[in-house]
């Protein structure tokens, strides 16, 4: 059978043209709207918020005994990671990745800080954190505080942490915690989050793109 034997009658061309014209105009408008709203940050491994989120007040202490609050996050970029020093596998692995990121971003003009926030303030004193974080990089910062102080920060960032009894070792306990790496911008706002598996290359490359697009 000849499939071309039924051409559209002329009367049906006009509506088709109108639909095509409307579709084209809508497409151009949508493309322009998207391009105007979206800075040139394409293909990120990170999840970047369309509008960076302001942080509610919180107050903690760093491994040198200095106050670590909203003001301490301003004026530079900060990578925040949540963990604890009695964690022998995931936390050292993450801190090693961050050390590698730090090396890759060393030529960067924008100051970047790397912060481990303890989700185990009971055992993680500033002294304990100092030994732990500076082992991986002398510039790394460890942050701890009261249970309530930690919760002020974790609750608003959606960071989960929970003590779990270690059945085979009754004297100790483990802490389950969110494994994301959070990026705070120089205005002190929550800018983006990286989810595991964390790759130093992807983090460094994404950071450069976000830095370029930051106003």
């Amino acid at each position, binding site marked *: 059978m000849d499939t071309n034997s039924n051409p559209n009658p002329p009367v049906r061309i006009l509506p088709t043209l109108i639909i095509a014209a409307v579709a084209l105009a809508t497409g151009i408008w949508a493309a322009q709207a998207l391009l105007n709203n979206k800075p040139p940050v394409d293909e990120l491994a990170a999840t970047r918020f369309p509008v960076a989120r302001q942080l509610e007040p919180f107050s903690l202490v760093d491994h040198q005994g200095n106050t670590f609050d909203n003001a301490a996050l301003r004026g530079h970029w900060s990578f925040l990671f949540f*963990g604890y*020093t*009695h*964690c*022998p*596998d*995931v936390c*050292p*692995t993450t801190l*090693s*990745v961050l*050390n*590698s990121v730090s090396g890759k971003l060393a030529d960067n003009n924008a100051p970047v800080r790397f912060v481990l926030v303890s989700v185990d303030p009971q055992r993680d004193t500033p002294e*304990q954190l100092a*030994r*732990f974080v500076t*082992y*991986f990089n002398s510039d790394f910062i460890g942050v701890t505080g009261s249970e309530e102080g930690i919760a002020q920060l974790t609750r608003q960032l959606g960071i*989960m942490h929970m003590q*779990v009894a*270690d*059945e*085979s*070792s009754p004297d*100790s306990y*483990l802490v*389950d*915690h*969110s*494994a*994301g790496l959070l990026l705070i911008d120089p205005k002190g706002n929550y800018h983006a989050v990286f*989810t*595991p*598996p964390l790759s*130093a290359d992807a983090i460094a490359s994404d950071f450069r793109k976000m830095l370029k697009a930051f106003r």
Partner: protein
Amino acid sequence: MKPAGFFITAFLLLCCVIPAQADDTLQVSDPWIREAPPGATVLAGYLTLTNTTSAPLVIEAVSSPAFEAVEIHRSQVVDGVARMQPVSELTVPATGNISLAPGGYHLMLLRPVRPLTEGDNVILLLHRADGICVTVTAPVLRMTESSSHQH
């Protein structure tokens, strides 16, 4: 250490003193212990186990003279949350292998008898369910991302 814990450790060490027949049914490769920050009371150990037999092999326990206790743990990220859980035993599949590596299965090494740094070697005793004990010497390494040396 509690008396019961001491007794169990002593027993586990003793079982490895009785010489097992030469046995290559379970092969151990790339054992290493991650050097930890000074003062650390928990370290992690890694290795790959290969079973050359046609039946699964079970590791019931691990002990070490260098640590007060050794547990088998597994790290997992579930719905964005990092969890670490004790595992009661490790099963090496028939003619297969299992890797204990960062971010997955690992040996949780508790309370080192003395501080360990890169260059030290640690003896690990793997206690098989069939009674055979496998002795492994694991070097302490300062490792970074993707198992490359950092210096």
